[in-house]
């Protein structure tokens, strides 16, 4: 029984190793980019368009709207980061219905990497929006005493994000694995479906939390 797909290593040369997580991530990237290119080729701004374009438009517009609803006015600026997070995480979750597939989000390395991206992106967005001083000032608000708590909060929430996603994705696979040994028929299917739902919910939660953090970081300007 594996806890993380990092353990499957296809190729290794010293420090560098090509494990299942990285390969799966590349496949997901390839899938997303290919679909995008396919759509882009047939993209039209006329009133009549393909069904696939319609689906992608709905997805993009919905993400955009969600970002806006959270309170980010300049939503298109953050669509690339937040939208990609959601598309990557949800694709990774949906693909778990494939038999031999193991989600890269079931690896703590991936979730940590994403959490680190958010951890770095939030202050970058905050500083670019408000300026360095104003951003740093937000750590001593409402009083100076709150500075350590704010810093701890910053780290802990990043950690929480990484572990929450990892735990959920990993547990789904784990539970199915355990149940297969006890009740081999039917029940694992329902749990897979449940896992699919959990994965999508987690993708949504991760994305929304990221949006909320970014919104919090840039909110002063919005006031």
């Amino acid at each position, binding site marked *: 029984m594996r806890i993380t797909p990092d353990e499957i290593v296809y190729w290794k040369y010293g420090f560098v190793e090509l494990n299942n997580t990285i390969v799966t991530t590349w496949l997901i990237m390839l899938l997303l980019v290919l679909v995008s290119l396919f759509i882009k080729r047939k993209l039209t701004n006329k009133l009549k368009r393909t069904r696939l374009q319609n689906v992608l438009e709905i997805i993009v517009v919905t993400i955009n709207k969600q970002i806006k609803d959270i309170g980010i006015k300049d939503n298109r600026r953050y669509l690339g980061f937040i939208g990609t997070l959601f598309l990557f995480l949800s694709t990774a979750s949906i693909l778990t219905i494939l038999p031999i597939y193991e989600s*890269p989000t079931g690896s703590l390395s991936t979730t940590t990497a994403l959490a680190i991206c958010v951890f770095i992106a939030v202050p970058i967005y905050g500083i670019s929006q408000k300026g360095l001083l104003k951003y740093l000032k937000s750590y001593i608000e409402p009083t100076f005493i709150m500075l350590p708590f704010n810093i701890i909060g910053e780290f802990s929430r990043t950690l929480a994000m990484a572990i929450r996603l990892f735990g959920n994705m990993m547990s789904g696979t784990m539970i199915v694995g355990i149940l297969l040994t006890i009740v081999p028929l039917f029940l694992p299917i329902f749990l897979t479906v449940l896992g699919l739902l959990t994965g999508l919910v987690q993708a949504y939660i991760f994305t929304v939390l990221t949006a909320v953090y970014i919104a919090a970081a840039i909110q002063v300007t919005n006031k």
Partner: protein
Amino acid sequence: MLIDWFTVIAQIINFLILVWLLKRFLYKPILKAIDARETLVAEKLSSAENVMQKAEQEKEEYEKKNEDIDSKRADLIKKAKEEAELRKTEILDGVRKEGEAIKERWKKSILDQEKFLTESLSDQTQKEVIEIARKTLSDLSNSRVEERMIQVFISKIGNIDKEELAKIISDKVAKDNKCIIRSGFELTVQEKAQLEEVVKEYIGNIEVIYKENEADLIGGIELTFNDYYISWNIADYLQDFERKIKEHINDQYKIQLHEQAGIQEGA
């Protein structure tokens, strides 16, 4: 160890690459397409609104035009009716006048006919009467009708009051010393001598001038002495006869005219 730091770094790079790729190949083109479509839709809506406004405007214009046409048509019909009425009156007047003229002409022609008939009848009657008288006289007394006329004429002169005659003569003789005897027929020498004798006896020894075959004296003889004249004329009798015939004809024609007029009015 659950975290493999190489994988973490690789995943961070992977994610950043994915962000860039999706931005380039998905978000930007799709948002661009959506924006373009929204602009297109907005343009179409606004152009549709413009078209609607234009259509509305045109509709109003056409309605106005229709109203104008309707009112113009009503005017034209009214005018045409008036003209037709006028024309009708004119035509009726013309017909009436023409009718009157025809009636007049008809009346005139009837009168002319009547006159012609009367005249020819009167001429014919005179001739016939004289002829009858001539025949009768020649049959009965073996003498000319003219001869009898002269006899009657002479006796008529003889019947004149002598005093009155003398008075006239005393006034007239000094003035003119002749008298004129006109007759509708030829006088024989004996008759002329008889007449001259009578003139000599009653008027005096004056010259007698004869005018024979006078057309207006069909069966008559006349003596003119200055303004004074004595005559015997069958025309005197005939005039009376003619008057009676005329009266009779007039009565007949009056009845006919009356009937004709009644028919015309009825039509």
